């Protein structure tokens, strides 16, 4: 009668986890993904040729195709208009799928199997317990076994030290921060990042192996391409950086119960009257992004994991029952970005090296956690990405037109252009940069809605509004001061605060909040058999830590709850 036991909408950080967990329970699962499937024999040229329809076998995975596409060139990979990593159709001749953002900022979300984890930096910290206990409808203790399961599955381990982490540790220790050797952060301190990246290859420092040989072996080789497409590994399922494309998706396919259909944009959740009253989800309608053909699939339950923007959009475009919190309460860690330029002689005396080498190692390898305020983490990128994040992207206009007040812990605030930009970029290899993640207050007015007029081929398009509260801005400013003080302590000669646009959306969370839109099992209050398994169910921004691990823990738990309720 049904096409599947469960349909999962989206194969990113959450959907792939739900699919694997449900498949391991013996349930028949169909996954619909709007973007491409990279590294699969069914789609040898995924960006220019339609290829197949479904992949159901682990043997379909092909690391040769994967490495051909993931070529590590920053513009080819991360151009938001036409890159491999964008929110758009697989066909790169076409425009991306538009979201309306009427303020400074940008939205870094990706379509494709693996979703945004294809270019995430694999940071996998747990939530701050103080942001969950007595705040969320469930306790932190309730999450712990699921955190542990995900951490062991990915797996998660602490980041190795490379030059930039060594310099970071030197600075934060001098600034007075203490080592915090824990996964459950209840007090301020520094630690290496808990990252979903395989530990370094044991032969990395052995000159008998060439780098090319090492790149075909298991283990991180510190190539620095977490964001531009990690290629370290002998097979798709053993790639070092553990986005879900290379971790949970292969595990899901191994169950023999999961089929994935990329290039399929879900445009409607189908419902019927539930015999016990109200509505229940019965399936989905989707549109093939290559042919424009539509199809419908039915299932006994549906898991919505389309992300913090598309999940509320799909709810609204499906005309599901009105709920005043659908799309509301968006949090985003209200980021900032700071950098320090070092002199060669200082670096020599600290590390015995003449540069920071921002392109070596895991993109982000160490952090200071400050519950109640947020996080700052050393984060270094290739020059195109680094130049615009550090000097071109700002809430604060141009530094030269509005120089900072004397006494501030930064020498530059806002954009830098002209000869000064050229001069600063000449110092790229001696510049260390940090991403700052703020404990963001959850506000009703921050939201995703759909435009009353504008549509694309998938229906009315999303409009995203985000304005931080004064409290969030106060915390962000405090984080910037802590971060710049540690750069100063390390000996940075010039310190830059970009004052990143508030709406630079990397960590969107809480637009379909637990306790408002979904219950504690992550089942929608108003639509039975519809579960949500992405960042949108978070009650808040979890205090500032990167949200993916918490989504993955919850998706694991949701799969358990769904199976018990409807399939036991």
């Amino acid at each position, binding site marked *: 009668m049904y096409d599947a036991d469960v349909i999962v909408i989206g194969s990113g950080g959450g959907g792939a986890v739900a699919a694997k967990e449900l498949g391991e329970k013996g349930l028949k699962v169909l996954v619909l993904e709007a973007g491409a499937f990279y590294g699969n024999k069914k789609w040898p040229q995924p*960006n220019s040729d339609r290829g197949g329809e479904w992949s159901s076998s682990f043997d379909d995975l092909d690391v040769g195709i994967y490495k051909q596409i993931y070529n*590590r*060139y920053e*513009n*080819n990979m991360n*151009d938001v208009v*036409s890159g491999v990593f964008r929110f758009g159709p697989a066909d*790169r001749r076409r425009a*991306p799928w*538009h979201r309306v*953002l*009427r*303020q*400074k*900022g*940008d939205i870094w979300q990706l379509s494709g199997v693996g979703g945004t984890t294809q270019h995430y930096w694999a940071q996998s910290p747990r939530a701050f317990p103080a942001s969950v206990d007595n705040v969320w409808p469930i306790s932190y203790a309730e999450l712990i076994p699921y955190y542990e399961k995900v951490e062991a599955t990915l*797996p*998660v*381990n*602490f980041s*190795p*030290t490379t*030059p930039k*982490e060594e310099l970071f*540790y030197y600075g934060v220790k001098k600034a007075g921060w203490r*080592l915090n050797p*824990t*996964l459950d952060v209840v007090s301020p301190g520094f630690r*290496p990042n808990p990252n979903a990246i395989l530990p370094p*290859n044991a032969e990395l420092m052995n000159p008998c192996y060439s780098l090319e040989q*090492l*790149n075909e072996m298991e283990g991180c080789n*510190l*190539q*620095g391409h977490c964001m531009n497409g990690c290629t370290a590994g002998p097979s798709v399922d053993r790639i070092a950086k553990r986005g879900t494309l290379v971790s949970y998706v292969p595990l899901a396919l191994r169950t023999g119960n999961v089929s994935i259909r990329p290039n399929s944009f879900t445009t409607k959740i189908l419902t019927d009257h539930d015999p016990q009253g109200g509505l229940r989800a019965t399936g989905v309608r989707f549109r093939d992004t290559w042919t424009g053909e539509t199809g419908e699939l039915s299932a006994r339950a549906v898991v919505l994991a389309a992300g913090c923007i598309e999940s509320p959009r799909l709810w609204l475009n499906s005309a599901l029952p009105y709920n005043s919190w659908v799309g509301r309460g968006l949090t985003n860690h209200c980021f900032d970005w700071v950098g320090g330029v070092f002199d060669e002689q200082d670096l020599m005396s600290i590390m015995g090296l003449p*540069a920071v080498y921002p*392109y070596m*190692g895991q993109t982000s390898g160490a952090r200071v956690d400050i519950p109640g305020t947020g996080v700052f983490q050393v984060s270094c990128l*290739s020059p*195109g990405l*680094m*130049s*615009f*994040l550090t000097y*071109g*992207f700002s809430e604060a*206009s*141009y530094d*030269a*037109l509005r120089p900072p007040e004397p006494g501030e812990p930064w020498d530059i605030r806002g*954009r830098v*252009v*002209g*000869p000064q*930009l*050229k001069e600063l*970029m000449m110092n790229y290899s001696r510049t260390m940069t940090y991403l700052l993640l703020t404990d963001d207050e959850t506000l009703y007015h921050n939201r995703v809605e759909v435009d009353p007029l504008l549509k*694309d*081929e998938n229906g009315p398009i999303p409009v995203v509004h985000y304005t931080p509260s004064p409290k969030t801005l106060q915390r962000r400013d405090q984080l910037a001061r802590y971060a710049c003080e540690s750069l100063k302590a390390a000996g940075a000669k010039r310190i830059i605060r970009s004052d990143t*646009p508030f709406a630079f959306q990397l960590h969107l969370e809480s637009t379909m909040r637990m306790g408002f839109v979904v219950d504690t099992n992550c089942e929608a209050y108003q639509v039975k058999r519809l579960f949500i398994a992405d960042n949108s169910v978070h009650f808040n921004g979890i205090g500032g830590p990167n949200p993916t691990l918490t989504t993955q823990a919850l998706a694991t738990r949701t799969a358990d709850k769904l199976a018990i309720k409807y399939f036991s």
Partner: protein
Amino acid sequence: MQIAKTYAAQVDPSTYETFRSLVEAIVPTTPCFGAEQTAGAVDLCVHEYMIWELDHTLALMLGINLTVFPLSAPTAGMLNSGAAQFVAKGGAQDAPCRPVWALSPFSALCPADRIVVLSLLEQLWFDLGLLPPPYQHDGGFLKFIIDYLNRGTMFGNYSEWPAYGTTRLNTPTLRRLECFPTGWQQTGYPGVSSGYRAFRGFMLFIVRDKGGYEIV
């Protein structure tokens, strides 16, 4: 070269010149920093990158058809309207270059004044009713795009895009690298790598055993 030339030839001269002067103001040519550091965004054709990006970024339904709305020409029009209003209000530090004014008021300004115009545009200081659609009376989208013009120029300049050379304006899957990127040379980035022997130990490590874990 043919394809790049053909695409560039489709762009109207005013739009082309406006983007040329935009990227020049953001990443200038700087012979004073030595031969390797001389090339700026104009030398690397980053204005063509910006035009291509803006012309391929927006697709919406128009009636029953998905339609691409090229944004480079209205964006140039918006910059030129800002420049004209700026000069009319007596804001320019240096007199605009008269021979260029008819083609592009924005380009007729000195680089420092172009940056001031960008700053005033994002502060919504001008009469937004005089801007072309889709910027007319849409201050939010105007703020978004002014910020994008800055970061897009930097990303185009310091990424590998200029090194796609004669294939730079092809559809992305058909671009091919023709040389080592100038922006990477200027910054000392060695290019994509299959690894670095940069391991300097662990601060902490998780050891898992029999379902449990220990931090060592």
